[in-house]
């Protein structure tokens, strides 16, 4: 079996070294290597689809043999899907997320490092490696926000890092508890899934609470979402793309792991569902008070992740796999929206929807990509989000009857508001702003790639869903 993950990691690592070594050509080199990694990831997906099963785990070396930690990377159906998404989004971010061409060297290196950590996280077979990649990813993004952000980035970056380190510290604590309280001391996820039921009840509750809070911060959802809008407001386009597109999936993926690992978590699923529903609806109201287009998009991330949390909380295969698919879809959709927002900012030097006018006449591809992004966000059929959403709601309705589907109201609210934004500022041609600088080919290509994958995974979901063994 071809070691897909090893090849991806190796390519990215080589790309990282090359990008560091060649400051002037860093973007080209980085794009090249991450495109290669993307191709490997996609071919892993295709080969799994053809053979009907995910590739075997790839064991590399014993990391800390005293604790039985081996550096083993493996695909599960969910992690395969997320890996493909992460590799595509990261490639587009590297290739087209930076029309200003500012600090390309730093940006490319950090993005490649982040991509390594994201793919490593999704593919890690034990929680220790998971945690390591988690923290590396978080720190990398901290630097992305801080080094490449806009004027008020200091506060946003500190806020981000404190929230995220808070989450990761809880995560570390919970991982240690799991290790010492499972009968076979192990960090290995499959071993934990097998043995977690023998953890004492009260410890399970503690572990669950810790992991839940940690992942809730990262996802994020109300009431721990406050870091995200600020981080997005200040982050660069590339930072926003991978922040919403990939980083928030860490939490979602972790939350899925929690529900797979800890039997006790289904006891709380109704409360989690209620919280997630509240979060989705509350945030969709909050976003109506915003004027900054990036902030608005950032808030939709919270809404969508809350809906994903509803799916996970249903604790049945439909909801959980639906959540996984919705994460895949959301990664493309949200990074498309951020890419458009970045291009619009580049073209008009304006992000406030009250004064942003006439994008459609200055930059047609941006405008229609934005509309497509809205379609993908609200789950119009034949976009990937639709598949995820319908699976989520089937799971939620199965688990909680119709109460599970209350969060669907949030889709109406954000949909209505996003179309309002589109028609009020993007598509309106009254008092249009002068074009400062047209976007280049790479932006258009990036948008096209993302749109292509949005529809590919929307029209051919069976490539991924056939691997889900419900």
């Amino acid at each position, binding site marked *: 079996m071809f070691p897909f993950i090893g090849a991806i990691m190796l390519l990215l690592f080589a790309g990282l070294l090359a990008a560091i070594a060649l400051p002037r050509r860093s973007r080209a080199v980085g794009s090249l290597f991450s495109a290669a990694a993307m191709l490997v990831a996609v071919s892993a997906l295709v080969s799994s689809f053809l053979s009907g099963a995910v590739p075997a785990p790839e064991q590399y070396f014993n990391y*800390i043999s*005293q604790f039985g930690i081996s550096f083993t990377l493996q695909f599960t159906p969910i992690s395969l899907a997320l890996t493909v998404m992460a590799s595509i989004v990261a490639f587009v971010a590297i290739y087209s997320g930076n029309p200003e061409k500012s600090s390309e060297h730093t940006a490319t290196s950090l993005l490649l490092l982040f991509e390594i950590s994201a793919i490593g996280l999704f593919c890690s077979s034990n929680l220790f490696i998971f945690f390591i990649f988690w923290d*590396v990813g978080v720190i990398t993004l901290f630097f992305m926000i801080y080094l490449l952000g806009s004027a008020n980035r200091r506060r946003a970056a*500190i806020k981000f890092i404190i929230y995220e380190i808070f989450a990761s*510290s809880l995560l570390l604590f919970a991982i240690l508890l799991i290790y*010492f309280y499972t009968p076979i001391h192990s960090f290995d996820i499959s071993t934990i899934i097998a043995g977690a039921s023998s953890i004492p009840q009260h410890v399970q509750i503690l572990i669950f609470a810790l992991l839940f809070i940690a992942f809730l911060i990262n996802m994020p959802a109300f009431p721990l979402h406050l870091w995200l809008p600020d981080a997005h407001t200040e982050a660069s386009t590339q930072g926003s793309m991978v922040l919403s597109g990939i980083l928030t999936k860490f939490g979602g993926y972790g939350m899925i792991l929690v529900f797979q690992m800890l039997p006790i978590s289904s006891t709380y699923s109704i409360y989690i569902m209620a919280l997630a529903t509240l979060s989705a609806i509350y945030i969709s109201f909050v976003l109506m008070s915003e004027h900054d287009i990036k902030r608005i998009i950032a808030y939709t991330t919270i809404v969508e992740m809350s809906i994903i949390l509803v799916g996970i909380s249903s604790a049945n295969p439909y909801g959980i796999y639906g959540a996984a698919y919705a994460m895949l879809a959301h990664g493309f959709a949200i990074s498309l929206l951020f890419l458009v927002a970045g291009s619009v900012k580049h073209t008009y030097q304006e992000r406030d929807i009250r004064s942003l006018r006439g994008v459609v006449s200055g930059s047609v591809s941006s405008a229609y990509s934005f509309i497509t992004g809205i379609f993908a966000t609200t789950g119009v059929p034949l976009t990937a989000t639709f598949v995820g959403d319908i699976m989520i709601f089937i799971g939620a309705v199965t688990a909680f009857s119709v109460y599970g589907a209350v969060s669907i109201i949030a889709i109406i609210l954000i949909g209505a508001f996003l179309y309002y934004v589109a028609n009020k500022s993007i598509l309106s041609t009254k008092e249009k702003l002068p074009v400062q600088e047209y976007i280049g080919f790479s932006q258009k290509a990036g948008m096209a790639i993302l749109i292509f994958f949005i529809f590919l995974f929307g029209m051919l979901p069976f490539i991924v869903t056939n691997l889900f063994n419900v």
Partner: protein
Amino acid sequence: MPDIGYAIVALMSLLVFSSIGGVFHRKKTIQLAASSLILVALAAVSACALYLQDSYSVLGALLINPFSMLFVLLFSFTLLLINLLSYDRSSDYPSFSLLFSFVVVGALVVAMANSIVTIVLGIELTVLPTAFMIIINGKNFVEPAVKLFIMSAVSVSMLVFAVILIYPYDPALSLMGYIANPGIAGSYLVMLSLLLFIAGISFDAALFPFNMWIPDVYQGAPANITALLSGVNKKVAFVAMLEILFVLLLHLSPIFSVMIQALAVITMFFGNIVALVQNEVKRLFAYSSISQAGYIAIGIAAASQLGVESSMFYLFAHAFMIIGAFAIILWLESNNVRSIQEYRGLASRNRWAALCLTVFMLSLIGIPPFIGFIGKFLLFSSAISANLVWLAAIGVINSIISVYYYAKVIISMYSGIEKTPLKMGTSIGIVVIICLIAVVAIGLYPGPLISAVSTASNTLIAM
């Protein structure tokens, strides 16, 4: 192979004599070369012994075993780094070198000690010369030196009193000579001596409230001495604490565990919370160093083999992180960059230095894949496995608090653009790179160090 023991003793004597000679010939370079070479030889010899897993005693007073050799290796290596740092910084390098040789002897003696008196002597040999090493830098440095001197006087009185109290039960004053029997075990005198030992050593190990001198002295002393205090003296104290608690007074482990737990908790909170409002980087690192001592104490409080292992691992980790950090602070100090505000734009003046300092700080927070993370991971593991879940939780909370002040420094370094580049001296550069390699490499592949530490802790507990 007793030869190794003799070799170490001989090398220590050689170092002292060469330094005395250095005071007369006053050739800095030769002196640096000589002392560095001897330290390298010490490190090599101890590594050799560690590899051979020897276990015997030399002259009845010094022990050669994996535990002692591991710390001889650590101390000779870290002292070598500090020696390199001090070369440029010391106004009177030969005098420094003489005092420094005493510190080396003290540190190694503590690592290899077989008797309580040797331990106390060793600790004093590391602390008192340090006070004088501060003073020789000039008038401005009298105050911190005197503070250190007074406080060490208090602590040594405690230690001596503790030795006196234990003497009736262990006339040989040997670590292994004291045989616990149920009748004596409950004796209040032994407990009092335990208490005084902990108090006396905590002075140097920087556990609150015995550590209140630290911010002033760390800030006031030249940064190379601060690095010595934080990177070596503190480690020496912890090694002494391990030896006394886990060999001599192991049967009192329920009691000392509670005491150390209390000290660990208040030390972590004190260090981290006060560090939040510090504005001068060196003082900030003084508080950070205090909080790190609290983390190390978690492992001792766990009072298990894993606990000892994790504390020992963290001693290694912290030594490299803090010496690397203080090396950069030292370099910046000599360029008149002290406060967090003055750190602005460091990344644009010297990006590699900023990157290295960032790595050290991330490692101090406990971010993977650096050595500090593995250390904290082991420490929290030991607490949880010893059923001290709450202690691990407090450790975790403190890591979160600590993020803020480290992030403040990082953010300051990477904000703004300063045009004038800063160039780093060779010797400091070497130290920083060695520390960086250690921090990253051990973080990425901690297996060998963990197994070394594990063997060492076996010998310690078995003593």
